[in-house]
């Protein structure tokens, strides 16, 4: 814990904002280099088809077109994209089972597997000409049967997408976590006083960061160096994979993620276009820019969720949840991106939630479908897990006619570190405390009385509860896919003038670490925030780092910074002691003053020490501090002992319009515990945005493919990203339970809002509809679906 907080804990406005509010942010598409060419990509409009012939002659003849490439042109130059989830033995890196991973080339060669699949690239003098040339390319297709439904696709007899595998299974974990667990679960289900079967379609979502993906590649012919500007969450991973894949020495590659317009996991891959734009720049010896258009972004940037969940539970008459057996069908898409097959692992390890059912087992069936790949989208497996656990709680409550908050309390893990049956160790928590606060803030008992009156009047009022626990601060490196780590790095440098430069390996893109890191440094080193500059996302400037995702910025990057701060303080004490003719052990470092503990008047400032550390001119030969190198900086790498486990309770109150099926959110109370809070303004911003994305899944968003594999929701006109008029007022509150995993006590808050809100809102609507006997409607709960369910219930 930080001793005497000053800047930490304050709602300080962000250092990054002046550039954005004046239009001076620098996003990838804003970059213009001399002689720059423009690349555009021809995308398949077929979901599953053999490519008979591609005719590019007309495109090549258009004035201003510099190059046209198709699949055969890049064979040998760009190998198939790696699926990081597959280890050297060809197995799933976490589940250990064999995996079928088809070659996924940056441009299709013999067939296409989803609408949006890359077929050709055009490089032209300007982007308009490049688009003209795309229109002039003719592709002769032979359509193949389309496979869309993951459950049907997994059955024998389904048409097969990748013939070489004989079926549509990417992988199958038939018995997790162990044969003993399965036997115990079957036994517990048999002995339970009550059983229930639950089926959930946790629909596909489209991340829809506001900035479409983009990249600029600049091959320096003279130096044979490469600079890549790319809209990514993981600049160092991009560098490593560009080097490995394209045979470019990694130390000749500089990857910069300039300002990045949102990610939410969708920029946590090295995409085909990043390889293609580099390949084109190297081929042509000129800078090349590519910017995705929104319609392309919908079909070729990763999707999220997409799980069909079949759950059997056992519970006793007192509300105790005793057993769960889950079978998950994963709608993975046609080709595997980096973590596509791995996301559901986070579901199976978190789906017992805040609770302690003794027996638990699962089956995961990863299935190919003729769609874009799914991968990590805000929450990545945990929203899907929490939805199950919270559906289970409400099912128990409804069956036993118990209050849903009491069922949750009955089943909470209460001793920490906690050991749920999934094998994880939850670091710290106090679930009752968050529940107490949420109930108190929302006025739960009064609301239930109001609900009784509403029901007596025939109104559909619902109160939904969600208690979640999630995993953050990703995370120990043994969890990382082969070839990368999950540790984090940071250099803290006090410059000769006493200014502080922080070089971090995380890659923020809206999370505000230029501010929160400066707050921490300000408190720790006693320098004003404006004297702290946080540098990130440039592989030539910062030490190798693993980027921003999994709510890891503060818990991982911040902790690496704390380690370096401690080293800088230690060296400052050593130098200060030398300057004051004292012993290091007798020195105190307090907010930029370094003094002799027994006599605080004998002091030097950090600024004086910094200057001395660099000019290093002492009184004469042999008078320099022994064993001390010049300079005042330190680099650290933090490998955590565990993940962190933020938690909280969200309560939502809705009215459902009986005539139209419309849902109106009347209250939304979020109580989140992310451990130590560095900047409450930023934490609230993360929670708000997270709630909006969970609300989007509950009520509005759905990546709908039709039977031919066309993405029907392929534009913002059809895909219902919430607008300002579609969100409620959020009431955000917190409890603070520090994590023991890092010295800051921080847990992470990037994904919590999404994880808590999806189930809270869903449960509220179901609670409203309960008097009609409606038990489940698959998300999103659009007015039409709710109205149909009401009509069906009325006629029954």
């Amino acid at each position, binding site marked *: 814990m930080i001793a005497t907080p000053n800047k930490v804990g304050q*709602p300080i*406005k*962000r250092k*990054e*904002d*002046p*550039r*954005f*509010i*004046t*239009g*001076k*942010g*620098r*996003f990838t*598409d*804003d970059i*213009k280099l001399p002689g720059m060419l423009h690349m555009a990509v021809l995308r398949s409009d077929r979901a599953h088809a053999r490519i008979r012939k591609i005719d590019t002659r007309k495109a090549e003849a258009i004035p201003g077109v510099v190059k046209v490439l198709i699949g055969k042109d890049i064979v040998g130059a760009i190998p198939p994209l790696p699926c990081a989830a597959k280890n050297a033995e060809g197995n799933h890196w976490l589940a250990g089972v064999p995996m079928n991973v088809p070659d996924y080339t940056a441009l299709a060669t013999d067939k296409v597997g989803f609408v949006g699949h890359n077929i050709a690239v055009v490089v032209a003098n300007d982007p*308009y000409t490049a688009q003209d040339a795309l229109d002039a390319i003719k592709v002769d297709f032979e359509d193949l049967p389309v496979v869309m439904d993951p459950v049907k696709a997994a059955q024998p007899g389904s048409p097969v997408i990748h013939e070489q595998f004989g079926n549509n299974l990417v992988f199958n974990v038939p018995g997790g976590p162990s044969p003993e667990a399965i036997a115990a679960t079957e036994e517990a289900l048999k002995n339970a006083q009550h059983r229930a079967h639950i089926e959930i379609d946790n629909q596909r979502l489209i991340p*829809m*960061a*506001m*900035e*479409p993906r983009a990249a600029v590649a600049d091959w320096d012919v003279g130096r044979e160096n490469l600079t890549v500007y790319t809209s990514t969450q993981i600049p160092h991973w991009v560098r490593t994979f560009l080097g490995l894949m394209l045979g470019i020495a990694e130390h000749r590659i500089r990857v910069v993620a300039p*300002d*990045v*317009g*949102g990610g*939410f996991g969708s920029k946590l891959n090295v995409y085909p276009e990043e390889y293609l734009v580099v390949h084109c720049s190297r081929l042509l010896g000129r800078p090349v820019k590519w*910017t995705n*258009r*929104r319609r392309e972004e919908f079909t070729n940037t990763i999707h999220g969720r997409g799980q069909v969940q079949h759950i059997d539970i056992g519970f006793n008459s007192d509300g105790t949840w005793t057993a769960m057996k889950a079978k998950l069908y994963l709608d993975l898409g046609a080709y595997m991106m980096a973590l596509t097959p791995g996301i559901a692992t986070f579901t199976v390890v978190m789906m017992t939630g805040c609770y302690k059912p003794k027996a638990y087992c699962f089956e995961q069936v990863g299935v190919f479908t003729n769609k874009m790949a799914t991968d990590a989208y805000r929450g990545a497996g945990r929203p899907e897990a929490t939805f199950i656990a919270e559906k289970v709680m409400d099912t128990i409550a409804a069956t036993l006619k118990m209050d849903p908050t009491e069922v949750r309390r009955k089943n909470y893990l209460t001793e920490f570190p906690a050991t749920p049956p999934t094998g994880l160790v939850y670091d710290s928590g106090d679930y009752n405390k968050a529940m107490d606060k949420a109930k108190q803030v929302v006025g739960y008992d009064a609301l239930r009385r109001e609900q009784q009156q509403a029901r007596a009047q025939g109104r559909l009022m619902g109160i939904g509860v969600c208690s979640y626990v999630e995993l953050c601060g990703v995370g120990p490196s043994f969890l990382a896919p082969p070839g990368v780590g999950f540790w984090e790095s940071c250099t803290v440098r006090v410059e000769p003038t006493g200014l502080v430069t922080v070089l971090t390996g995380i890659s923020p*893109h*809206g*999370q*505000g670490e230029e501010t929160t890191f400066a707050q921490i440094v300000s408190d720790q080193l006693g320098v004003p925030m404006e004297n702290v500059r946080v540098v990130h996302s440039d592989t030539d400037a910062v030490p190798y780092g693993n980027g921003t995702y999994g709510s890891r910025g503060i818990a991982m990057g911040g902790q690496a910074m704390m380690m370096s701060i401690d080293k800088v303080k230690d060296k400052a004490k050593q130098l200060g002691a030398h300057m004051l003719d004292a012993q290091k052990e007798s020195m105190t470092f307090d907010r930029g003053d370094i003094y002799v503990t027994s006599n605080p008047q004998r002091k030097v400032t950090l600024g004086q020490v910094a200057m001395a550390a660099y000019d290093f001119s002492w009184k004469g030969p042999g008078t320099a501090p022994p064993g001390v190198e010049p300079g005042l900086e330190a680099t650290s790498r933090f490998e955590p002992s565990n993940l962190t486990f933020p938690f909280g309770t969200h309560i939502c109150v809705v009215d459902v319009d009986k005539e139209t099926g419309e849902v109106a959110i009347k209250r939304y109370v979020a109580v989140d515990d992310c451990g130590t809070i560095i900047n409450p*303004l*930023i934490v*609230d*911003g993360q929670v*708000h*945005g*997270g*709630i*909006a*994305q969970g609300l989007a899944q509950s009520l509005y968003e759905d990546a709908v493919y039709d039977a031919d594999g066309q993405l029907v929701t392929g*534009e*913002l*006109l059809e895909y219902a*990203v*919430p*607008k*300002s*008029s*579609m*969100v409620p*007022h*959020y009431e955000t509150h917190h409890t603070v339970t520090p994590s023991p995993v890092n010295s800051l006590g921080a847990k992470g808050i990037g994904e919590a*809002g999404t994880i808590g809100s999806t189930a809270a809102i869903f449960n509220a609507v179901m609670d409203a509809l309960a008097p009609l006997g409606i038990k489940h409607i698959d998300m999103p709960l659009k007015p039409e679906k709710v109205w149909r369910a009401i009509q069906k219930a009325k006629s029954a």
Partner: protein
Amino acid sequence: MAVSIRMEVNGQQMSGETEPRMLLVHYLREKLMLTGAHVACESSMCGACTVLVDGKAVKSCTMFAVQADGSKVTTVEGLKQNGAYHPVQEGFWEEHGLQCGFCTPGMILAAVDLLQNNPNPSDEEIKHGLEGNLCRCTGYQHIVNAVRSAAKKMQR
């Protein structure tokens, strides 16, 4: 075939040549180097490209540059006057009305337009007034706070 156009952009007379099919947002970004207006949907759904044309908020991704011939255009770069932020810019900064910052220029100009027409909007009016501009980061509450705060400042 290039066409000559002339417009007043952020108070300065600009003239130049453009292809008739060039969108206003591309003209601003590529020819005038004003990259504050962002291209994010090309269908007028998201509002990241919002600028003021003759004082009114316009989605510059669905307007040709030639259609702005003879107009006064204000982009986010033109809001700061004599080194002072516009109250809406201040509001966004003080109330944490932005995270990744990509939608922000368009959102700010939409808010300027909103406050021109309704200097003292309720929260509901702000929410409806800004529904042509999408933000994926903030969940909008801090944006509403930002606009409310700007409205107060502008009334002083």
